[in-house]
C-alpha cells in the first residue's frame, strides 16, 4: 500500500530517530511511504496562536500538495497531525472555512484524500495480529507506560480513531510486541512541550509529574508517538530521573529485530541501553 508521507520539521532535527524508525518499520510491514514533494511547515502551534489565517492556510497548502499526489497522507508527528487534521475537518464540514482555505492556499479542495497518523495506520490498517506476526524478539517483561500526549486523539470529532480520555491503541500495540503496558492515569495529560523554550520552569513541573506517575505505575519506560513529547519528557526531566522514553516505532524496530534499531536509540538524551541490556534486547 502506498501513502504520501509528511515528516514535518521536527523529524528532520530533534525527532530524527522517529523519522528513521518510522520509515524502517513501514518498510518491514510492506507499507510504501513516499515523501510528499515540496512539503512545508504545517504552522505548528505558533500559527494558530497568533494568526487564524496562517494556521488554516499553511495546513491547507500541504493538503493541496497531498491532493495532487492522489494518495492518503501519513503523518507521524502528533502536532503536525493535529494541525493538518483540523484544517481538513474544517474544510470538509464548513463551506465558509473551505472557501477561506481555498483562497488562502490557492487550490480547490476535493476531500478525496484522508489524513492518518502513522499509529493509526499500524493499528487499524495493518492490525496488531499482523504486527505480532512480524515480531522476532518479543519485548517480554518490559513494562511500559503508554503516553499518548494531549493532541493525538483530540478533539474526538476531528480524530475519532481512539478514545479521547483513555486511549488504548499504543497499549494494544505494545502488547502485540510482547511488552507489558501498565495501567496509569496520565496517558493524555499535556507535557507542556509548546512552552519548553518560553516557560521551562512550568514545563519541568508537568514533566516531573508525568514521569513519576509512570514510575509509580511500575513502568520501566514510556512510549510515545510524538517528537515534541519525546524530546520534552527527556529534556525537561528532573536531573535524577533516568526513565527512558521510546517512540513506538523504535520498540517495533527492536521487536522486529531490525539491525538499525541501536543506531536510533543512541540519539536519545536518556540512555536506554542499560535497560534494554537488562532485558537482553540489545547486544
Amino acid at each position, binding site marked *: 500500500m502506498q501513502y504520501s508521507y509528511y515528516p514535518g*520539521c*521536527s523529524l*528532520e*532535527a*530533534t*525527532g*530524527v530517530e522517529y523519522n528513521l524508525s518510522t520509515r524502517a518499520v513501514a518498510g518491514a510491514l510492506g507499507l510504501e511511504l513516499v515523501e510528499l514533494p*515540496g512539503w*512545508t*511547515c504545517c*504552522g*505548528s*502551534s*505558533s*500559527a*494558530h*496562536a*497568533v*494568526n*487564524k*489565517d*496562517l494556521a488554516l*492556510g*499553511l495546513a491547507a*497548502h500541504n493538503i493541496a500538495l497531498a491532493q495532487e499526489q492522489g494518495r492518503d497522507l501519513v503523518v507521524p508527528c502528533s502536532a503536525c497531525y493535529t494541525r493538518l487534521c483540523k484544517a481538513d475537518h474544517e474544510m470538509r464540514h464548513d463551506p465558509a472555512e473551505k472557501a477561506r482555505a481555498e*483562497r*488562502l*492556499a*490557492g487550490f480547490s479542495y476535493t476531500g478525496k484524500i484522508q489524513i492518518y497518523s502513522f499509529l493509526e495506520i499500524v493499528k487499524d490498517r495493518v492490525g496488531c495480529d499482523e504486527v505480532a506476526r512480524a515480531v522476532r524478539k518479543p519485548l517480554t517483561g518490559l513494562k511500559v507506560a503508554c503516553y499518548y500526549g*494531549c*493532541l493525538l486523539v*483530540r*478533539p*474526538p470529532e476531528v480524530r475519532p480513531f481512539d478514545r*479521547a*480520555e483513555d486511549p488504548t491503541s499504543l497499549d494494544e500495540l505494545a502488547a502485540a510486541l510482547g511488552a507489558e503496558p501498565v495501567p496509569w492515569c496520565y496517558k*493524555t*495529560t*499535556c507535557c*507542556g*512541550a*509548546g*512552552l519548553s*523554550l*518560553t*516557560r*521551562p*520552569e*512550568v514545563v519541568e*513541573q*508537568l514533566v516531573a*509529574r508525568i514521569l513519576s506517575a509512570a514510575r509509580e505505575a511500575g513502568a520501566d519506560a514510556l512510549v510515545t508517538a510524538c517528537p515534541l513529547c519525546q524530546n520534552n519528557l527527556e*529534556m525537561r526531566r528532573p536531573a535524577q530521573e533516568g526513565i527512558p522514553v521510546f517512540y513506538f516505532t523504535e520498540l517495533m524496530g527492536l521487536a522486529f529485530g531490525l539491525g538499525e534499531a541501536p543506531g536510533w536509540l*543512541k*540519539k*536519545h*538524551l536518556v540512555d536506554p541501553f542499560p535497560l534494554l541490556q537488562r532485558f537482553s534486547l540489545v547486544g
Partner: protein
Amino acid sequence: MATATLHLPAGAVTVDAAFREEVARLSGQPLELCFQCQKCASGCYPTQEGDYTPNEIMRLIQYGARDAVLRSRTIWLCTSCETCGLRCPNGIRIAEVMDTLKQMAAARGIAPAGETGPLFHNLFLSEIRAAGRVHETMLMLKYKLKTGNLFADMKLGWQLFRRGKLPLVPRLKKDPAVRRIFERASGQE
C-alpha cells in the same frame, strides 16, 4: 462604548459589553452557556501558574473584562491540549477561545510583562515565511539571542547537537507558495 469598573480579588477590571460578542464571533463558541462548573479548570495543568483558571477567563469574558483577559498570563500558558473542551458539559471548545484571545492580544501588541510567547511565535512564523520550514537550530538560537538568555540550555543544546539533532544545514527551500499564503493572511492580496 459602555464601560464600568468591577472590583475582583485580582484587582479592578474595566468592563466592556461588546467584548463577549467579539470573542464569541471570532472563536465560534457559545460562551454564554458557561455555568462555572469548573470542569475545565480541574483538568488544566499548564495554566496552573497563570493568573486565572480557564473558567475564570470564561467569566471575565462574560463580564466583558477586555483588558484583564487580553493582558492575562493564562492565555499564553494554554497549550491547546483540548482537555477542557473535551470535558465541558456545554460543548464549549475553550482552546478555541484561548486561541482567539491570543490572536486578539497579539494583533494589539499586548502582552503581560516578561511574557515571551508572542516573540517566540513571531520568530517561528518568520522562519516559515523565509524558508517554508522551521529550522529548529536557528529558531532556538534566534530566540536565545532575542531574549538575552543565551546560556540557559547551552548544555542541552550541545547534547542535542552531538546526537545529530540540531543540524546546521537544513533541508530547506524558499517557497513562493508559502510567501503568498503569508501575503493573503495579512490581507496584502
